[in-house]
């Protein structure tokens, strides 16, 4: 029965997916971004991290279609002679890695705490939700900035640089878990009072099993929606932190880092160094957001 | 009954929901009349189309639902094709509505007095002072104690039963000729249901208001209605005087339904006695919609759809009463 419902849901999703050209386009864009990022080490034309391959005399090459451009560097090169296209692919990799990891971290944390709060109720619930409320009043970017700042200040610089990526993931993840907790808690409360859960309780099914086998499957839809929309936000948060110079370490430049570096060249005519990473970032976030929007509408037909 | 001009006429009403998998027919060929002052009970299982019929009459079908065929006439005037603004003037003024759940029907942010007054000033040529005075009277009429004080209370300050009384007052306050009451007691405590029904019945009689009472509670119907329409899968299965339908139902479905009424004053749960379940709108069988469950099914039922046919004291949509065709 559950499988049949699931199949129905899947086909339904598929149907609404195919009906919306915007969604199809954004899925393709997202797929291109993800593939480009994931496969960067194999398909990028150059390796921007291989310092020995950089040549300063190749610096500031415009895109290939410009008369001064070189076919070797499709989107031009930056001030160190790095291939912009390759840098974008590797940068997208970092952006995506941070965004995904932070979202997964926030999801796991938020879902477990939300389930616990919704299922346990009482003091556990009120304390957890109070924490949620407090944190939700602080914008996530500020929380991330503070977490990052404190870790930066506490750890010696060398140690920090090595784990900087994790710090950023942690900072962004910790700033976003309450949204998940809230969503899950709400759904859990609804599910908890349904007859089948009550019945399961009465016959002595362990709480943990009830939560994971009965409650969780019913809240997967909303979680998926929140997670998708949050992925876009997480990528933006990372870009913003990196733009402010407190995000990922410069040895692993993300799209935000590339934009920050390129910004210095925006007015001097070398626009490609900043515009292309900017376009890549927007394309990635916009496509993810569009997918999230579609998913929300598709899973929540009432809203249509 | 046919000697009095009917107040409401529903003729061959068809309501469709266009969906991505094709068009769902929610109501098909529904016809009935309500005379002035008459109470028509509409019964049937959930999803049979009872509430949909009510919504179609007050012109508030949920989009994308739409009337695809048929007519609705109020006092001889066609109202199903009116523009929104014209229909709005009729709602509340000519046709009042009562919804199922009094807990969600009232706007939580406005006092009951304000909601009553705004309804009256919208439809009646009275000022705010007069409206307030009448609001208090209405609250008294529906049995709210200390109405003069409670008029400035917010809905959440009332109990469920009291709220439904407020809703009744709201439905009646512009003195409509017809009330569409959609399961007015379902959400209430059993102990309160009878009081609310009694109130509704009394007011309708006093004001001479006709009523379409939608419910799946046969007990309520038996007690309140003059006539009753039994609906099944978006169609009227049988319609006739309440006594006849309850006692001598002609349609096999009605018969099964009536058999489920327990002896006096015991509440009826879902109709578990009929085997199987009502089909989904997307999978209504060919022929008579009831044929897969019908104990008296024969070939014709599986192929052709029956219309309402005179079946003695009632009209039933059943080939059993088709005098022209031989039984198979």
């Amino acid at each position, binding site marked *: 029965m559950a499988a049949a419902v699931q199949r129905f849901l899947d086909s339904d999703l598929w149907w609404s997916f195919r009906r919306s050209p915007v969604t199809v386009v954004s899925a393709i864009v997202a797929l291109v971004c993800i593939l480009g990022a994931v496969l960067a080490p194999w398909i990028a034309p150059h390796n921007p991290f291989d*310092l*020995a391959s950089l040549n*300063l*005399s190749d*610096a*500031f090459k415009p895109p290939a279609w410009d008369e001064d451009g070189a076919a070797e560097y499709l989107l031009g090169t930056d*001030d*160190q002679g790095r291939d912009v296209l390759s840098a974008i692919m590797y940068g997208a990799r970092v952006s995506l890695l941070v965004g995904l990891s932070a979202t997964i971290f926030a999801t796991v944390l938020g879902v477990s705490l939300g389930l616990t709060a919704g299922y346990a109720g009482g003091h556990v619930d009120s304390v957890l939700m109070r924490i949620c409320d407090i944190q939700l009043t602080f914008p996530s970017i500020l929380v991330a900035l503070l977490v990052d700042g404190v870790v930066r200040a506490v750890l010696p610089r060398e140690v920090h*640089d090595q784990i900087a990526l994790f710090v950023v993931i942690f900072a962004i993840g910790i700033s976003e878990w309450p949204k998940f907790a809230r969503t899950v808690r709400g759904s859990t409360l609804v599910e908890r009072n349904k007859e089948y859960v009550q019945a399961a309780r009465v016959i002595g099914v362990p709480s943990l099993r009830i939560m994971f086998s009965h409650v969780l499957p019913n809240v997967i839809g909303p979680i998926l929606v929140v997670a998708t929309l949050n992925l876009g936000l997480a990528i933006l948060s990372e870009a913003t932190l990196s733009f402010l110079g407190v995000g990922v370490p410069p040895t692993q430049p993300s799209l935000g880092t590339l934009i920050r570096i390129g910004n210095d060249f925006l007015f001097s005519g070398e626009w490609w160094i900043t515009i292309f990473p900017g376009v890549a970032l927007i394309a990635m976030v916009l496509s993810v957001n569009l997918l999230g929007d579609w998913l929300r509408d598709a899973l929540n037909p009432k809203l249509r | 009954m046919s000697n009095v001009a009917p107040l409401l006429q529903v003729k061959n009403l068809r309501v469709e929901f266009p969906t991505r998998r094709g068009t769902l027919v929610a109501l098909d060929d529904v016809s009935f009349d309500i005379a002035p002052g008459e109470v028509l009970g509409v019964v049937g299982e959930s999803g049979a189309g009872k509430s949909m019929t009510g919504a179609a009459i007050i012109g508030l079908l949920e989009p994308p639902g739409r009337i695809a065929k048929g007519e609705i006439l109020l006092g001889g005037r066609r109202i199903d094709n009116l523009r929104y603004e014209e229909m709005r003037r009729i709602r509340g003024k000519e046709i009042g509505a009562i919804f199922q759940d009094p807990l969600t029907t009232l706007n939580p942010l406005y006092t009951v007095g304000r909601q009553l007054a705004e309804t009256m000033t919208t439809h009646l040529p009275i000022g705010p002072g007069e409206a307030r005075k009448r609001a208090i009277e209405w609250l008294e009429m529906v049995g709210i104690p200390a109405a003069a004080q409670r008029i400035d209370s917010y809905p959440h300050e009332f109990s469920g039963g009291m709220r439904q009384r407020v809703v009744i007052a709201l439905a009646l306050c512009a003195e409509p000729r017809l009330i569409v009451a959609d399961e007015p007691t379902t959400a209430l405590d059993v102990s309160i249901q009878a009081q609310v029904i009694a109130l509704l019945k009394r007011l309708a009689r006093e004001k001479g208001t006709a009523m379409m009472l939608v419910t799946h509670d046969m007990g309520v119907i038996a007690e309140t209605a003059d006539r009753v329409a039994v609906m099944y899968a978006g169609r009227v299965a049988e319609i006739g005087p309440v006594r006849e339908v309850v006692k001598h139902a002609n349609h096999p479905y009605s018969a099964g339904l009536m058999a489920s009424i327990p002896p006096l004053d015991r509440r009826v749960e879902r109709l578990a006695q009929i085997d199987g379940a009502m089909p989904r709108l997307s999978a209504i069988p060919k022929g008579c919609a009831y044929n897969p469950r019908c104990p008296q099914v024969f070939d014709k039922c599986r192929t052709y759809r029956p219309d309402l046919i005179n079946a003695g004291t009632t009209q039933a949509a059943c080939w059993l009463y088709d005098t022209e065709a031989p039984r198979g």
Partner: protein
Amino acid sequence: MRKLLLAAALALGLGAGWAEARTVRWAASGDPNTMDPHSQNVGTVTMVLQQIYDTLIARDQELGLAPGLATRWEQVEPTRWRFWLRDGVKFHEGQAFTADDVVFSVTRAQQPTSNYAIYVDTIERSVQVEPLVVDVITRVPDPILPNKIASLMIMSRSWSEAHNSTRPQNTRNREEMYTTRNTNGTGAFRLQSREPDVRTVMVRNTDWWGWNEPSSREANVTEIIYRPISSDATRIAALLSGEVDFVLDPPLQDLNRLRAAPNIKVVEGPEVRTIFLAMDVHRDELLYSDVRGRNPLKDLRVRQALYQAIDIQAIHRTTMRGQSVVTGTFFPPQVNGYSREEDVRLPYDQARARALLAEAGYPNGFEITLDCPNNRYINDEQICQAIVAMWARVGVRARLNAMPLAPFFAKIQRDDTSIYLLGWGVPTLDALYSFQSLLRSRDGGQGNGIWNYGRYSNPRMDQLIEIMTNQSGAPRDAAIREALRIYREDIPHIPLHHQMIPWAMRSNLTIPHMANNQPYFRWARMN
């Protein structure tokens, strides 16, 4: 209103050569962190304070010495310099300028909290001879005292005492005193208002003694509004859109665009500042390297390899966009003691670099961390990035540690570094200043090796520096020549280039370009 007042002032004969309000809106990346003239010896502070405070000896437009508050000076004895002071000079708040103010200012600059000790290190005391004659007595003969005294800004004794400011503000322990935000100089402009990090407004001191000097006769600036704009892009956008008139430090990558823009001109010139890499040649094991038990940088061959691995022409061409003067030594020709023959680089030769590394026992290179500021010198971080890439090609795996100047200086000043990039300016325009600060052993002598964070120590170098300090004439010149040769052969630093400094401004502003990167608005004219 202001125009009216100025017209009135003109009518009273207070001003000459200017007739109406001429405001220069000036922007640079950093903001001075104090208004105390003896507290912070950094360019961002002096560029504002030298508009307000005068020195005994001024600089002319070629950075030569010129009369300032002293009209004349003379080395009356080997250890005694005498200064004859200008008559009738008044501080902005009205106090008359006397020899006593000079004595006070010298003493103040010698306080432990002073950052200007290097300019007064040889001074034993100063005495008032007459109200307008002052003697400065040195512990040892100091031939370049006038060069140093030219950087010492003169304060009013009575004003300082009245405001509890008889010693320089101690920026290290974060104290605030009156001089943090207030000034009282004798200079061409006086401070009108100051909001740190936002704006500093100076207005013309119509009483200034120098307005009738030939160099200032055409000057007409009546108001200077300084705003720090740290973002390169924003600073340039502000100049292009006409919100500022003068940008002291336009980013190199924008120069072509600025040159092409109407109503904007770029004035270029060399700066007396040399960029180089300095190395830890003291520790037996580097703090930031994978080499254990020995310090590769102590090996001349390794230093030479790192040197020859750098393609300085590529950096000059691309990173600096031609705005640098490649060098093989550590101060530019404007500085007394410079020698063309000693300004020779080791050639760029990666094969040679690899061979040297192999010879030194590092055929596979080694790891090291390069500390680099990212907002102090022109394109500092980019230079370091380029060098890291170049080193990578000879097998030296350098990790770049780029930071803002505050943590950067804090780090290297703890000797907490293995190799770092530094830029060194020479305000005295004499070689000694560089030798003493950068290469002398840190032996506790005042000013000795205070910027020698690699702790280079060479007894012969120390001797030569001693000669430079105490002697003049031919022996001194010879000592400098020899020291420069040792510098070239011993490679305590890897020299890179002298900075060129472009100034960008609106076409209607004329201001002499100065190699010390200080704009002198007393010589500026707005049309």
